[in-house]
């Protein structure tokens, strides 16, 4: 369980505090393949390790892409890595999104803030195998227009067949011509068939609670709603005990869970 040395091949700024890093292994072998929704433990020399969701294209096996928000010392060290520098990678770990169960179904993807990053691989997979999936509805909310990720791709995705992309911000500036309001306000514009939809949600926990309520109002059962959860992680492999949430280890039983599993836990304060 040692980190493997990867090199930063590209580093780009998405928003004022969020960066996307593209990593490839030093020795040119195929990178680890991954399931959408899985994460890696990324290590910067002498600073420490962080669990970061993989946000790249699962069909491109020669690289691993991560979108990281700089919120503290460790994330700052990671986003400051220049092209050519090295990062240690362990993984991929975790149970990912139900992309197999979703075949033949409509997908409702609801992302809040940086939560779009772990969901992007699902979108890539669906677009790569478009015939295997039904309608794709993406509901994406961010704080303000500057914080929107993957802007060009959002536009490109909205133009693909049988795909609906709805974007909103909590606070719009003067030049923002789009929707303003929390992400749940987008549901009224979405065309949803609950009996043949799977929903995948990722964002701050409060946002996920509001969204699951709305999805239930829309008629989805709890087995059809999936969330990606987050807790403190030190090892990523179920041995250090930190990521426990009720009886679950987020790192090995998750981070993706059904709402049926999560509903009794989400309402418990300080669980």
């Amino acid at each position, binding site marked *: 369980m040692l980190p493997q040395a990867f090199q930063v091949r590209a580093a780009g700024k998405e928003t004022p505090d969020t960066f996307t890093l593209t990593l490839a292994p030093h020795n040119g072998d195929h990178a680890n393949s991954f399931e959408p929704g899985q994460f890696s433990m990324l290590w910067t020399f002498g600073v420490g390790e962080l669990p970061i969701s993989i946000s790249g294209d699962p069909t491109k096996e020669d690289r691993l892409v991560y979108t990281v928000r700089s919120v503290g010392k460790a994330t700052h060290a990671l986003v400051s890595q220049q092209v050519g520098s090295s990062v240690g990678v362990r993984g991929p770990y975790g149970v990912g999104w139900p992309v197999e169960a979703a075949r033949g179904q409509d997908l409702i993807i609801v992302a809040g803030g940086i939560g779009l990053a772990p969901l992007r691989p699902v979108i890539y997979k669906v677009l790569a195998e478009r015939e295997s999936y039904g309608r794709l509805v993406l509901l994406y909310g961010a704080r303000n227009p500057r914080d929107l990720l993957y802007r060009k791709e959002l536009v490109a995705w909205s133009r693909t067949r049988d795909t609906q992309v709805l974007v909103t911000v909590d606070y719009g500036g003067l030049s923002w011509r789009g929707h303003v309001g929390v992400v749940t306000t987008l549901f009224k514009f979405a065309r949803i068939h609950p009996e043949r939809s799977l929903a995948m949600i990722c964002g701050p926990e409060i946002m996920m609670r509001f969204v699951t309520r709305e999805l239930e109002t829309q008629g989805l059962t709890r087995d059809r709603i999936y969330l990606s959860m987050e807790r403190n992680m*030190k090892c990523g492999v179920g041995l250090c005990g930190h990521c426990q949430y009720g009886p679950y*280890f987020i790192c*090995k039983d998750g981070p993706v869970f059904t709402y049926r599993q999560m509903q009794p836990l989400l309402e418990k304060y*300080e669980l």
Partner: protein
Amino acid sequence: MVLRANEAPQGASLLRVDRSWSWEGWHRLAEKQQLVVEADQLQKLIEALGARDFEVIGPTVRDGAITLGQLQSAKDLPAGWTDEQQPGRYRLQKRDDGALFAYGVGPQSWKQYFYPPHIELWSSEAQGFRILNNHRAPAHAYALIGVRPCELAAIRIQDRVLLQDKYPDPIYAGRRANAFIVVVQCTHAAPTCFCGSMQTGPQAYEGFDLALTELLNSGPHRFVVESGSERGSEVLAEMQAAPASEQDVAAAEAGWTQAREQARSIDNNGLKELLYKNFDSPRWEAISARCLSCANCTMVCPTCFCTTVDDVSDLTGEHAERWRHWDSCFTLSFSYIHGGSIRTSSKARYRQWMTHKLAAWIDQFGTSGCVGCGRCITWCPPGIDITEEIHALREENGHGNT
């Protein structure tokens, strides 16, 4: 609310074999060959183990407690010592005989050997970004002398957690491999013991190489010995042993019966559901008024396994190491994610520990995480007693917030 039943992976032997103290149990024991050795043969035991290249670890007196350390000879054992254990209290006392194992468990458990409190995971050089796996299995396998049945149960629980789940821990595996275990069956229970209700003692039936029961009366200082493995039998063959007489076997059994008299107990029926249901019980608030979040309980508990990692580099910044240390869910930073910790109150942290130990552990690993050794009761400064707390929760059940 049953969340998910966790099935033990293929090949794992579940610890909790349903073995109540029945006539059948007696009979099974009686069928195994019981031998007897005089107390001076323990020196032979230690020498035989040393000759087989084991590092022999056992109890010894240090710093006013029974602690674990390397045994150079049988003289290192705590002859003539006993302990007094109560909630929040531990004292050693001298006896007027030469009993070698007349005390309960001390503050340390055997987990410090298989799962060290501090260990380097790997090191790396900035130059060339090389990462080196520096940990090696210790030069000698461990021989543990004086393992109580509850402690053996704890070792097997840690085997399940650390070796038999999705990602085994190679450090634990390397240190646990080939360990030679000499159990000492209990003939007396400390006031804080409750292994009976946890079905982890006071006798061990399997999983050891040798099992000893100390006898002091009606004859010389001696031990009834039972082998649990081929290795055990080979070592036993190097000691002067004779078949145990009926009186000696009866004396051993009388001791085991006496050990069953325990002041404390936990009723495990439906305990998992009870704890899950009582998340909002006012009892947690009451406990937290006493709990100091000192983490003693997690440090002395033989099954607690939480760790943290620490990345350190030298002054030049060229060389970095990653170390693993024992950690505790009682610390504020344990549950920290960006923006703050999840469990900020000590109430939430105590509840997490107890619910994990007695409830979530069952969903995760198929058994309770508690072996009833009573250390957490003895070593809790305000003397919080989990058996008392479970009892109180049961009384409140139905009256607490659900």
